[in-house]
């Protein structure tokens, strides 16, 4: 009798036991106060669940369903709509980025020399304006 699983108590209160199982459960209940306590718990919890009133949807929910049947709506689910919005943003960004026009990537050398030469000088060269390196006096031979 001790091998009877405790879950039989839920099956018992739900009317899901066979006649043999009912006899076993009732015999165990008659002899085991712990099982009787558990049975009370199960019955109480079950009653609590079954007494829950139906959760009402927001006002207009059913009318909204009828107004936009799933296959005629733009997106059946908010998550689908969100993914569509993300995809639209990605497409927009891709289209906005300047694209390679297909021309020769090598710069025209003459233009490059003229431009660089006009804006470069030794005075403006940051390397040339660095302070000269002098060895510390204490390290001189």
């Amino acid at each position: 009798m001790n091998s009877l699983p405790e879950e039989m108590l839920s099956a018992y209160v739900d009317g899901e036991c066979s006649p043999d199982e009912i006899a076993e459960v009732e015999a165990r209940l008659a002899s085991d106060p712990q099982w009787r306590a558990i049975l009370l718990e199960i019955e109480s919890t079950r009653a609590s669940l079954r007494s829950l009133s139906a959760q009402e949807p927001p006002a207009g929910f059913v009318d909204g369903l009828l107004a936009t049947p799933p296959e005629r709506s733009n997106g059946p689910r908010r998550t689908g709509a969100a993914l569509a919005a993300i995809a639209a943003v990605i497409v927009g960004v891709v289209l906005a980025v300047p694209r390679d026009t297909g021309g020769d990537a090598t710069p025209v050398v003459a233009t490059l020399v003229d431009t660089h030469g006009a804006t470069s000088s030794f005075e403006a060269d940051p390397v040339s304006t660095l302070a000269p390196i002098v060895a510390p006096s204490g390290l001189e031979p």
Partner: protein
Amino acid sequence: MPDGVPTWEEIARDHGRFLYNVAYRLAGNDADAQDLVQEALMRVRRGLESYTPGSLEGWLARIVTNVFLDDVRKHRRRPTIALPEQPDLVLPPSAAADEVGEGFSEEVQAALSVLPDEFRVAVVLCDVVGLSYDEISVSTKVPVGTVRSRIHRGRRMLREALT
């Protein structure tokens, strides 16, 4: 549409609230419940051709449950808790359901929401929808013995969460 088979509009109008209630008990919040109902109704629309007149609400509950379980598999949105293998703790008696106050529904819903998904599904289908163990077994594609275990352990965990 064959005799005895409702139209999609009839289901949305007459059973939209039922679907929402089941979805809300499973998902635990309004936004997810609305999403579940919309997805379920899409499947209803596709499945009406093959629907055999019978327990319409059982069929609808099965669909919305499958939508929920599919979402869970994809997102694992909700936290799960470790379960004792042998929950043999005897808990003190609680007040009967008709003795509690207005906020009790919210307390029960909060307790339901922390159950692991597969246990919440079993308890909701049994105690909210009123399906038999066989029907839950078919709906969730698990053996009846597993259904029985999940219902019992789910109720025990729920009881612990409520005390």
